[in-house]
């Protein structure tokens, strides 16, 4: 029983980490056209002392250069007609979201399996 419960704890930590990642992806996509926005990234860290669970570290910003867009009529455009847009690449964000979804589903599958195993274990008591 203890192992099954720690299975569920690991899966839950995985799901919450993937959900946090997915939230940042959606924030990035929402701000894809915000001038001066830098995409947010979150690292995954293994919790060593616990049951091998995972957690998200501190959110940091992507320091790669912002995309320069030529649009002289833009309110933030400089004297040369360029303004700095965000450094969000939609293709990367979509791929990241798909990967997060895949990992989330795998964690959910493991959680469901542990739950089934627990209930079939408890079924032994019913007869």
């Amino acid at each position, binding site marked *: 029983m203890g192992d*099954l419960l720690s*299975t569920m704890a690991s*899966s839950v930590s995985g799901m919450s980490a993937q959900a946090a990642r997915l939230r940042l992806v959606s924030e990035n996509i929402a701000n894809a056209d915000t001038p001066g926005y830098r995409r947010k990234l979150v690292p*995954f860290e293994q919790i060593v002392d616990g049951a091998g669970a995972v957690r998200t570290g501190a959110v940091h910003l992507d320091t790669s250069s912002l995309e320069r867009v030529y649009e002289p009529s833009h309110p933030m455009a400089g004297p040369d007609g360029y303004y700095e847009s965000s450094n969000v690449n939609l293709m990367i964000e979509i791929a990241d979201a798909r990967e997060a979804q895949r*990992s989330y589903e*795998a964690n959910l599958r*493991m959680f469901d399996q542990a739950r089934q*195993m627990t209930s079939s274990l408890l079924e*032994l008591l019913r007869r």
Partner: protein
Amino acid sequence: MKFDIGILQMAQNLAVHASARQSVIAQNIANADTPGYKARDMATFADSFRETAYMRASSSPVRAGHIALGTERSGGDIFESAEFGAESPNGNTVSLEDQLVRAADVKYQHDLALGIYSKSMNILRTGMGRIR
């Protein structure tokens, strides 16, 4: 109360081994995107059982934490292994497909153990003159 019946104990140990191994697999899946994480696994029940039986036959002491017919706790050895699949650029060696196949295997073993346990109990009850 502890029944000293071989098949019940073996079924119990198989169930314990399956849930312990499932816990390791769940950790692998939770860390499927953690940079530098190495996939881990436990020896299969058959392997550790065979090894223990061999050790018993050669009358050497059973290694601690190993699965034996009579031991209470059967944790098994957790080992790191890089042979599961290609390593991704961030140093992670977890392959989700591989882990899900292992999880299905573990589920099958757990169901098998519980099935054997309940059927054996049914036989015992029948032997005691009560049907179900």
